[in-house]
């Protein structure tokens, strides 16, 4: 298994980041939409705590992923891909990175402004981003968090749609190389 990406495909580390973060975002969306409907019970408090812990985890993983991506090359686009599609793909990818940074940050901001605890999986206390309770910023941070989430949902629909279109429509390598890595490389298994 090749750790680094090549001209032909994505390395194992980028693929691990991609699918791990994707799974966490999916879980986070479901948890987030469910928890706000819950009545006030200790279970609700625990589900909120879980949502916050996963959010902090995503933020940390995205920062590591960006640092790693900066250290290596990007595989080549399929040769047949027109320029507007390359540009659109880059714009969507860049926006996705911005969103998966901004959404956990806005959640952290909302939590800080609410003066609510933030303890990563019950293990360690993470300080707030505001100086304690900030009732002016609290509703604004929440609105930002929710709005950015729905923007993410829309962009993810584009992203997933484009991946499926590449795979089933164009029958190129774009989706496969994010799933199983570079194909036909020396020293690589099937």
């Amino acid at each position, binding site marked *: 298994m090749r750790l680094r990406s090549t001209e032909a495909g994505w390395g194992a580390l980028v693929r691990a980041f991609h699918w791990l973060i994707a799974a966490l975002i999916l879980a986070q969306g479901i948890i987030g939409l469910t928890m706000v409907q819950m009545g006030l*019970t200790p279970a609700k408090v625990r589900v909120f705590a879980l949502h916050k812990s996963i959010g902090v985890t995503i933020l940390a993983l995205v920062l590591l992923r960006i640092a790693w991506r900066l250290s290596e090359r990007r595989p080549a686009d399929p040769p047949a891909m027109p320029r507007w599609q390359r540009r659109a793909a880059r714009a969507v990818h860049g926006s996705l990175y911005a969103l998966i940074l901004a959404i956990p940050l806005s959640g952290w901001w909302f939590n800080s402004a*609410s003066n609510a605890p933030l303890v990563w999986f*019950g293990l360690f206390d993470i300080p707030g981003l505001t100086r304690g309770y900030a009732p002016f910023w609290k509703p604004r941070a929440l609105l930002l968090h929710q709005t950015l989430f729905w923007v993410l949902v829309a962009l993810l629909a584009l992203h997933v749609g484009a991946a499926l279109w590449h795979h089933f429509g164009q029958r190129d390598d774009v989706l496969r190389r994010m799933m199983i890595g570079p194909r036909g490389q020396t020293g690589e298994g099937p």
Partner: protein
Amino acid sequence: MRRALIAMGTLGLLAVAAPALAQTWQIDAAHSTLTFTNTYQNVEYTGQFRRFTANIAYDPSDIARAKFDVKVDISSLDTRNSERDHAALGPAFFDTAKFPDAYFATTRFRKTADGKVVADGELKLRGVTRPVVLEVQFVPHGDTATLDVTAQLKRLDFGIGTGQWADPSMIGDGVTVHGHLLLHASK
């Protein structure tokens, strides 16, 4: 003999009339706070009750005659978290619809072996009356004084957040209450 009897009778009357209370004090509300610390999800937080009244009679040279009578408006709770405050006033916790006020009254003041003043008293909170021991620090400055009192309570003793909310890893059982009062001597 007769004079002596009259003198004794007069002294006796004075003695009956004399249990005049110790010096009484008015609270300077703008410079006085009633705060508490507790834990939520194992993280310490501080809250306060913004409205409370108290009758304070205290003379450091005669603590036997001291008396505190305190009434706290529970709905003035502020923990700097509006969701938490709203939940705390509800039926599972303070239940202010049924129990709007808490009352504390001292029954006895005494000095401990190390010379500190403590007051035994009773706190009535959420309809439950329990004995509470108050540590008292009184510092006079002429016509004013500062009074710091501290007590350790257990919320579950008073039925605050029982049942599914009893878990102390969610809400700590121990609560430290601290009153810091600026007093002006009553004329």
